[in-house]
């Protein structure tokens, strides 16, 4: 059908469903592009729909309405239950997408920096310790230099006692500087024992001037000990004491020497 249907009843017959095949297709094709015939067909559909009123009356049971209302309520519940979590805005998604790789890089960088920082901290601590050791060494060197070069430093020879024949030692002491240097050769001390140097003042009890323990017999030992300045020394002595030393001498003397 290329033009309008020649008779208006064509639309009624179409609405009734009497047409089939090419006849049906021709009307559908024409009406789809012809508002005037579409209107005519709508009217024909309305007329033919009235044939429904010729059917014997039949009221639906109440259960159909109840099921219908329950169906739409159930739909509402499902929609509420399955309501998706709000999606982030497009900007937020873009922002998130843009930052995702950056966040990964940042995480890697953070780990790297943390490891690096730990390494640097360790290096810094090592450096601090080394510096401290250097500083102490430097202080010792300065103290030693000052002791050796000072004109008022006295030298004291320590002589072995009968309990330690062959041993020897020497002390440099400066009362003004409060520094004492011991050097000597002694056999290794007995187990759980150590050697302890004492300053025997002119008056009062001996004052500890440090402990030392050569690992092998005949090994030279040297200790530099700071003491409170101004202590007049009468003599120096080395005793054998329990490991860690004692506040006052308790063990046998192995070396002793007077300052004058």
């Amino acid at each position, binding site marked *: 059908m290329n033009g309008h249907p020649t008779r208006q009843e064509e639309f009624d017959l179409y609405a009734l469903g009497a047409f089939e095949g090419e006849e049906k297709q021709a009307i559908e094709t024409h009406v789809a592009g012809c508002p005037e015939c579409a209107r005519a067909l709508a009217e024909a559909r309305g007329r033919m*729909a009235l044939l429904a009123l010729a059917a014997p009356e039949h009221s639906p049971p109440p259960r159909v*309405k109840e099921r219908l209302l329950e169906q739409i309520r159930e739909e509402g519940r499902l929609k509420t239950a399955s309501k998706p979590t709000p999606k982030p805005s497009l900007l937020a998604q873009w922002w998130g997408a843009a930052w995702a790789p950056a966040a990964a890089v940042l995480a890697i960088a953070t780990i790297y920096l943390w490891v690096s920082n730990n390494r640097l901290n360790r290096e810094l601590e090592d450096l601090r310790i080394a510096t401290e050791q250097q500083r102490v060494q430097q202080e010792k060197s300065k103290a030693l230099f000052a002791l050796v070069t000072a004109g008022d430093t006295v030298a004291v020879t320590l002589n072995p006692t009968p309990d330690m024949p062959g041993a020897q030692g020497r002390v440099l002491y400066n009362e003004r500087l409060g520094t004492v240097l011991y050097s000597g050769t002694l056999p290794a001390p007995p187990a759980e024992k150590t050697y302890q140097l004492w300053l025997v003042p002119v008056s009062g009890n001996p004052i500890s001037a440090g402990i030392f323990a050569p690992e092998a017999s005949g090994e030279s030992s040297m200790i530099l000990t700071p003491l409170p300045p101004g202590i007049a020394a009468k003599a120096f002595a080395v005793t054998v004491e329990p490991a860690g030393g004692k506040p006052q001498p308790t063990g046998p003397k192995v070396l002793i020497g007077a300052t004058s």
Partner: protein
Amino acid sequence: MTAGAEQIGSDWELIERVAARDEKALATLYDRYSALVCAVVTRILRDAAAAEEILQDVFYQLWRSAAQFDPSRGSLPGWLLVVARNRAISRLRRINPEEKPSDASEFLEQTVAAPHALETEVAQKQLMGKVKGALGALPPEQRQAVELAYFEGMTHSEIAKRTGDPLGTVKTRLRSAVETLKRTLQT
């Protein structure tokens, strides 16, 4: 249909409320037109359970697509009756109800102009009498052809096969019948 439902509002006012998810508005429209829909579907299928299923389905479709209804494009009872009949005929003829109609037929389905107001029970009763009278006034072979077409969903050739009459005769009978009905129902 209840007397109260008739006072609630026009079809299109109610459809707007249904589109706004007003359950009571749907219930009112159901009360107004469910008997008409149920009658035609039951007549076509002669199966109460299947008819109830289609009745519920048609009003559920109204609930879901109320927002797409355009008052300028037709009448609600016309649309309900056309959709209900199509579904019942499809069921009767064992056509897959899930089969999507062509775009053209879907468009046509939704454009149903009704020459008569059917919003009140009184109007419906009056029109029922008029339609039954018009159909009953047709010659028996014409009335049979119309009923086979409308309630059985038969085409010209199917009617000819059922009645044993020549195809041309069936076409002439049916054309004469719709001409008569058109004149009768438009007055």
